[in-house]
């Protein structure tokens, strides 16, 4: 731009470069995300309240299970309109939860302006058109905008005098009332007080355990312990490398981020499925003839999912300083990994592994219940065979085993810390 007199040329608009365009879009997305987060929280909360109230009404009054009872569009319209009305005219629970409030950009927040905001949000907010502009159109024309709430010197209003507080309280009460009604039936409560004798044999085992089954039970315990140890070891072998791919601070850029998201997503799905369910799937796979194998596979999958999460979270919390320092010496990426990251994570990793081993011992007894081998399988066979005294004996053994491993793992972890 040389050669022109001062003020003759205008600077190139920011959005005409790739980065500038990206920045402009990202800024608009940020603003829209803030508005929609509040809106979704409000609409979701109102929907939950509506559903729960209907559920309780249907359960107690009509004696059926129902959720809406009105045409779905009435429900949707009610929830959306209710949410917008609440946001425009008062302090909604979404605003409260995210620490924001509707404040005037300039002047006073008069009822007229609030009504204007209510209408404009329909036209420009909900449709998304308004967010093309910065500040968004509904904010510009109503003079009201969502801003971070300012600390005020006045004493806060007690929760029972705010709409948000009352809303949460009502939601909790309705939830508890319907939960208690649905889960506790008079029939089962009556049995709780009259049928205690059914379990007498169990407790008898505490005084007179069946010693004839001890040797067999010990063998099953050995299998259980080996299942836990091997599942943990195999899981560590897989999850240590995976954890590096699942750490947000190490996986940046257009290739790294999708890998991170993929692994984290897959792991959190695998973790949501209990080992028991995994054991069922694997039992069909390797047949019930090899039940401990199915059990160890189930433990393995669940351990990987759990360990990757624990490891990766630890990796995300490492001190960035040494990484910076070793990069500054001119070292390559692998050297940075080896000298700046690995020394920081070795002990926590071992500690997490011991913790997971402890959990796997418990889980190994549990997967046995679906036929995953080990002591759990023996226990469930006794229970279903109505051999309660033997079952009680096995349970005592399990308690001792779990207790011992728990103590051992806690001691070792305390030493590592």
């Amino acid at each position, binding site marked *: 731009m040389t050669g022109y007199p001062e003020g003759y040329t205008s600077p190139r608009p920011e959005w005409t470069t790739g980065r500038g365009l990206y920045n402009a879009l990202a800024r608009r997305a940020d603003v829209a995300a803030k508005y929609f987060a509040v809106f979704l929280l409000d609409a979701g909360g109102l929907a939950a309240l509506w559903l729960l109230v209907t559920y309780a009404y249907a359960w107690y009054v009509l004696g059926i299970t129902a959720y809406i009872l009105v045409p779905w569009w009435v429900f949707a319209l009610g929830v959306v309109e209710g949410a917008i009305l609440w946001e425009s005219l008062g302090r909604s629970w979404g605003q409260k939860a995210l620490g924001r409030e509707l404040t005037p950009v300039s002047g006073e927040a008069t009822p007229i302006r609030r009504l204007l905001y209510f209408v404009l949000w329909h036209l420009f907010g909900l449709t998304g058109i308004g967010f093309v502009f910065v500040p968004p159109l509904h904010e510009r024309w109503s003079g009201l905008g969502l801003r971070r709430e300012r600390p005020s010197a006045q004493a806060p209003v007690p929760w029972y005098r705010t709409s948000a507080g009352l809303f949460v309280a009502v939601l909790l009460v309705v939830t508890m009332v319907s939960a208690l009604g649905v889960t506790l039936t008079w029939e089962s409560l009556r049995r709780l007080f009259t*049928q205690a004798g059914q*379990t007498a044999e169990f407790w008898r085992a505490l005084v007179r355990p069946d010693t004839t089954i001890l040797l067999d039970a010990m063998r099953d315990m050995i299998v259980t312990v080996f299942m836990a140890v091997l599942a943990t070891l195999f899981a560590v072998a897989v999850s240590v490398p995976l954890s590096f791919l699942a750490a947000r601070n190490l996986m940046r850029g257009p290739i790294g981020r999708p890998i991170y998201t993929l692994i984290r997503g897959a792991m959190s799905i695998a973790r949501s499925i*209990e080992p028991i369910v995994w054991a069922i799937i694997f039992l069909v796979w390797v047949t019930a003839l*090899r039940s401990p194998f199915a059990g160890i596979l189930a433990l393995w999958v669940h351990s990987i999912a759990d360990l990757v999460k624990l490891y990766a979270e630890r990796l995300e919390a490492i001190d960035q300083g040494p990484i910076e320092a070793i990069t500054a010496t001119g070292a390559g990426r692998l050297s940075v990994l080896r000298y700046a990251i690995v020394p920081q994570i070795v002990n926590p990793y071992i500690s997490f592994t011991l913790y997971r081993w402890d959990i796997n011992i418990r889980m190994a007894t549990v997967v046995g219940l679906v036929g995953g081998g080990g002591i759990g399988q023996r226990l469930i066979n006794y229970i279903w065979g109505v051999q309660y005294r033997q079952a009680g004996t096995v349970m005592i053994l399990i308690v001792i085993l779990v207790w011992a491993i728990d103590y051992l793992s806690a001691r070792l972890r305390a030493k590592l810390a």
Partner: protein
Amino acid sequence: MSPTPGGAGAPRDRLKVLCRRAFSFLLDWMAWGYVAYCAMYLLNYYWYTVHVDWWGTLTLPSWGWPVVILVTLELAVWCRSLGRSLGQRAIGVALRPVAGERIRLGQRVLRGFLWHLSVLLAPVWIARGEEPLHDRLARVGLRTETPDPERPGRRAILTQWGFFALFLGALTMCVGWLIIGINLQVLIRRAPQAGRIWGEMLRPDFRYFTAPDPVFHLRALSYSILDLTVVTVFMALVATVLGGVMAFPLSFLGARNVMGFSPAGWATYGVIRGFFNVFRSIETIIWASIFAIWVGYGTVLAGILALTIHTIAALGKLYSEQVEGVSPGPLEAVWAAGGSRIQVVRHAVIPQVLPSFWAFTLYRWDINVRMATVIALVGGGGIGDMLFYYKNQGDWSKVGAVVMVIVAVVWAMDYISGRLRERIA
């Protein structure tokens, strides 16, 4: 560890040192015992090829037991004399000469032989408060290993104990592989069958998501997936609330700093902590099987009771550890102002621990939702009833639908509880 184990020092310290030595010796002995077990298992498996069940039958003639015990004992003794054993490494000691720089091999061999004499005379030297006889006669002693600034330690893998630990690990892998019957061939051979199941599960059948399944009945009522999901979440909710409410007062009784140091206080503390520990080590699902016998198979109440009991024990332990970890300053302040024990708890302890109590409760709720999904296996009620019903029918596309709903619910609860905990912390 004091510089002269078994030597000078108060009797109590001497006892402590002796206990540590005994522990480290037992560790070595047990390690060799484990090697012997594995060796026998492998012998059974490969040599006799007699009846080897999936759990690994151990066949040993009756005269074999003393042999095994003696051989492992000898191995442990010689390991401890000739080098640095795993047990010595575990308590951080090493054999050092009384005088001079290095131990001669002769001294080590002498110590090994003398051990047998010394162990018979153990009561004498223990009573006299001396170092072990074999150590004194061989002019060596077990000393705490101090890092030498000039000579950095050798790599762990090159030391005796490091090699032995690696050996134990490898042995565990081999024997565990055989005991569990890991068979990768089966995994591959039956992959088509498994693939069929996976395929069906990934094409979920959501026909009965909101409409009740007319074939599936629980106590003469038919349910949809959604109905049972709601019931499952409610189970977890009720159990967490009940468990939290009951664990709250109990946790103060199980905290040493609140209970004081009177005999009654100690007794209450011991009983409550024992209750927490025992009940916690019985898994929820095992509790559910007991309560299913008690209040009826497949009732929701059985599941709730199981979850509640386990929640009380687990939360109680976490809570009371928090109570024990409070900073003593505010407590002193209330004591100094003339407050009673109740007032101290109310005004100094509770404000400090409440945030972490909430965090633990939310965390527990998350766990309870997970547990509630599978507790039906042993008759605890909830969505698991449907899962296991469809599984037994072999209707894998409906199993897939149920599993997906479970994943969604558990994931959502995990997320919500995580976010709330972040807010609290």
